[in-house]
């Protein structure tokens, strides 16, 4: 097995044995969407604009929550040290681990998006563009979330700090994604935003694992 598959399998298995790590963000997603549906009047009859924005922001927050625990357990029990020490190709291992984390944390949330869209009375014509943008969007959110988690490894009570570090980095993708969906809903041209979000996703997939791998090394050196 190569480094990618080893890291992927391991992260999936650990995630499978700690189902609460995936279920808690899912519950969070549903609760926040229902809070907004209950309290904000007119969410359902505002030509989809607010509903799209709500779904994006809530998915963003849940993904950040879900990826905040990345590598924390490995850091505590020393298996991260082994991963770094094997030093074969940490970049590839990080890729495997982040891909697995996307399956653990983002895919369950994406499965919930239709339920959220139904709760917010989003027109069914908008669903396809929502998914077309949410898939690359959630990949970027996961990568930045894991980056934030590695930045704050070993820092106690890192939740608020993580939000401060990661949320500004989310904003360009959020704007592009919401922009593409809303433009599509009002039948304006949205290709620019759609291409932009895929371009950012490609760049993030390529470069961010370098940064994550560098930070993992640093966390073991000092």
């Amino acid at each position, binding site marked *: 097995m190569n480094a990618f598959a080893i890291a992927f399998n391991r992260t999936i298995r650990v995630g499978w044995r700690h189902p609460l790590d995936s279920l808690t963000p899912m519950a969070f997603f549903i609760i926040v969407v229902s809070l907004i549906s209950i309290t904000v009047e007119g969410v359902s009859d505002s030509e989809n604009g607010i509903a799209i924005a709500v779904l994006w922001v809530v998915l963003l927050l849940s993904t950040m929550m879900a990826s905040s625990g990345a590598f924390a357990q490995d850091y505590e029990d020393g298996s991260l040290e082994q991963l770094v020490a094997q030093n074969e190709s940490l970049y590839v291992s990080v890729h495997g681990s982040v891909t697995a984390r996307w399956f653990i944390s983002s895919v369950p949330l994406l499965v919930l998006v239709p339920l959220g869209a139904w709760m917010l009375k989003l027109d069914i014509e908008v669903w396809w563009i929502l998914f077309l943008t949410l898939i690359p969007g959630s990949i970027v959110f996961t990568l930045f979330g894991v*980056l934030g988690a590695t*930045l*704050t490894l*070993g*820092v106690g009570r*890192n939740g608020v*700090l993580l939000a*401060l*570090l990661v*949320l*500004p*980095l989310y*904003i*360009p993708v959020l*704007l592009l994604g919401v922009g593409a969906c809303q433009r599509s809903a009002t039948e304006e041209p949205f290709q620019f935003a759609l291409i932009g979000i895929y371009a950012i996703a490609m760049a993030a997939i390529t470069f*961010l694992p370098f*940064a994550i791998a*560098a*930070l993992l090394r*640093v*966390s073991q*050196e*000092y």
Partner: protein
Amino acid sequence: MNWFTQTFHKMGSPPFFYRGAKVWVTWLYVIGLGSLLIGTVWGLGFTPADRLQGDSFRIIYLHVPAAHLSQLIYIAIAVAGFVFLVWRMKMADVFIVSAVWLGAWLTAFALFSGIVWGIPTWGTGWVWDARTTSVLVQLFLFLGLIALRTAIPNSQRGALAVAVLAIVGVINIPIIKYSVDWFTTLHQPASIQIGNPISIDPSMLWPLLVNTIGLYALAAGVILYYMRINVLRRERNSDWVRDIVNSE
């Protein structure tokens, strides 16, 4: 070129930097405060009022230099972060720690002066368009760098983490820079661009240039001043600091 690499290597040495920067701080303060005084008095008192905006356009003399400089400081921090990651030069981290607060304040000032300017000219202090939002993101990035640095107790590790975060955050800079050209926003495109004729009258331009030079010089002076303090604090156990303290 040989001279340049030599100076570059020498600047990496704390005692050399500490002694060499002293003269620079004084001169940069003098030039910076002097030019700011001249440019501001000139701009506020002696330039004609704008045909469309009246006197409110005079905020340009502080808003534009502050906004531009804050962005430059972010890029400089990211470059220093790269230098620190690759060569592990101590002075690069000293620069980051000394410059990050100034960058945050300048960004906040650029936003504030923009709001003050927007109320009479746009009719609203704040719009959620690409330029204002991306500058706000830059403020958050600065605050994130500060928070991360203070949260990590191990100094070397904190420095490396801050360097990585600064480099990743650079993606925001082209978004700020080109937001007025790519998207339709209320914010006007830049009046002074390399390669294009300058679309601003010379009588209004000169005070702006003087103020820009002044603010840049002052900022460089302030950063060097704090770098000297931080160098002393970090090297407090070394011989050369002891010599300086004993001789004074």
